[in-house]
């Protein structure tokens, strides 16, 4: 009883409230975009949260966007996600691509590249790192990837990532880095050194900086910054950077 009244107070201003699965949200299903973490009941059209996390409400093109962001590390593939995969096998006209350790590999056809044909095969080997888009992710079928930008039919930043280093962060952080161009940690880091970065929704990050030392420093900074608050970023970044130089 007490929880219900507490929640109804919070729902007056729903941004940044803590939600657990089963909470009643009373969202009207008109003009809304639902992000991950929701389930729509087929019979009653009721919107039920399935994840525990912080509810984020924002507006986008006259529609209200509801997203529940929870801290998770296990990646579940969804269509249109940009991911970083490692080639784990080649089988005739297919590549097997690992999106995370100990989960079933995804598939990628050799024709899923710009200008691909029987005579023009991509030069990918086992162990290569690629930046790809999830083409389809249905239940009980293997996930399919492609390395073509769907709108232009060209490379669009997809394809093999050469050299550099690969590491993982939690999924929420990876999404934050991918969709926020002005993420504080990156704007601060670029003041210290130049680097190339690729972020995958599966939590993997690829980075290439000028020297080995700077690359290791950047990796350490990004890994540790998962636990830093926004205000602490410049000071802590300086601290870790100094330890390396």
């Amino acid at each position, binding site marked *: 009883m007490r929880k219900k009244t507490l929640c109804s107070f919070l729902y007056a201003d729903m941004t940044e409230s803590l939600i657990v699965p089963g909470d009643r949200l009373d969202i009207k299903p008109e003009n809304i975009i639902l992000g991950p973490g929701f389930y729509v009941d087929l019979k009653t059209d009721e919107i039920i949260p399935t994840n525990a996390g912080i509810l984020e409400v924002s507006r986008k093109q006259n529609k209200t966007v509801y997203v529940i962001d929870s801290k998770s590390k296990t990646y579940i593939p969804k269509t249109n996600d940009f991911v970083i995969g490692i080639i784990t096998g080649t089988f005739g006209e297919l590549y097997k691509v690992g999106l995370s350790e100990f989960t079933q590999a995804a598939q990628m056809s050799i024709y899923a590249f710009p200008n691909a044909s029987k005579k023009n095969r991509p030069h990918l080997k086992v162990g*290569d790192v690629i930046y790809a888009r999830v083409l389809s992710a249905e239940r009980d079928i293997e996930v399919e990837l492609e390395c073509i930008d769907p709108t232009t039919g060209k490379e669009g930043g997809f394809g093999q990532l050469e*050299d550099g280093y690969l590491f993982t962060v939690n999924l929420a952080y990876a999404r934050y880095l991918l969709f926020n161009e002005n993420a504080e940690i990156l704007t601060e880091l670029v003041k210290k050194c130049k680097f190339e970065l690729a972020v995958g929704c599966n939590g993997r990050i690829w980075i290439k900086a000028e020297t080995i030392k700077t690359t290791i420093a950047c*990796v350490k900074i990004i890994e540790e910054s998962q636990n830093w608050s926004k205000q602490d970023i410049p000071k802590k970044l300086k601290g870790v950077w100094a330890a390396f130089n």
Partner: protein
Amino acid sequence: MSTNEHQFLLKALEEGLRLDGRKPMQMRHLNIEVGPDYGQVLVSLGDAKVVVRISSEIVTPYEDRPFEGIFQVSSELDGMGHPSFNEASHRQEEEVMLSRLIEKAIRRSNALDLESLCIIAGQKCWSVRADVHIIDYDGNMTDTVCIGVIAGLLHFKKPDISIKNGTVILHDMSEREPVPLSILHIPICVTFQIYSSGSMEDNVKGDGREFVIVDATLKEEALTQGTITLTLNSNKELCQMSKSGGINLEVDEILSLTNEAQIIVDDFTKYIKDTIKKDEELRVNPLQKELQVVNSRE
């Protein structure tokens, strides 16, 4: 593991850099928590975590060794340590290597005095058992497990016993102070990984350049081309040495590794002893000591 990571790691090693910023001969931070039970130890070396529990019971000694007690170490790798250990094939190899090294380092080096475990020759003796649970597998489990077992043995206390007319009387912990085990020396394992920048041919001919690092993490271990484990104690004695295959390493290099290992072992031995001493001080209640009657042994 991608080729990118593989190449990056080797290039970094050539410059003397490691992925977590450590120097080649720098160990990760060691933390030991003892108690509350005697012989209960939680060891973490960086992110590698191990729980060791020592237990004892009275049994009949082996027929061919009537004057000795029994000591066993049981270490099992399971999915809790790392998901890859859910597959039997990978687990078997690692398990055998790990138990073999701990066996050589602690049992065969006679760290635990087995004769002190004898109660009545040929009839009754103590059987001490170390159960190792790997909580987090992050490379270098040999060193972590070794420290756990030896710290557990140093911390453990068995119930006091007295013999009356051929019968063994086991005293409860509250009746009589439990007795520590007789540990003759403190062996500590130090494991090094060897990498080569040249080809196999160069290495065999002696033309290649080898890099050695201590206390590898999981990623560094995955790319290793050779492993050497040295077990030393603070008396400057080499208890055991193990290098099973892998690429060749110059003899001078191995000798200098023993010097590096000695520094690490001295450091860790001091820390283990301090931890156990601090725990002992916390357990002894000064007032209780005043009121305790000193039992005369029959």
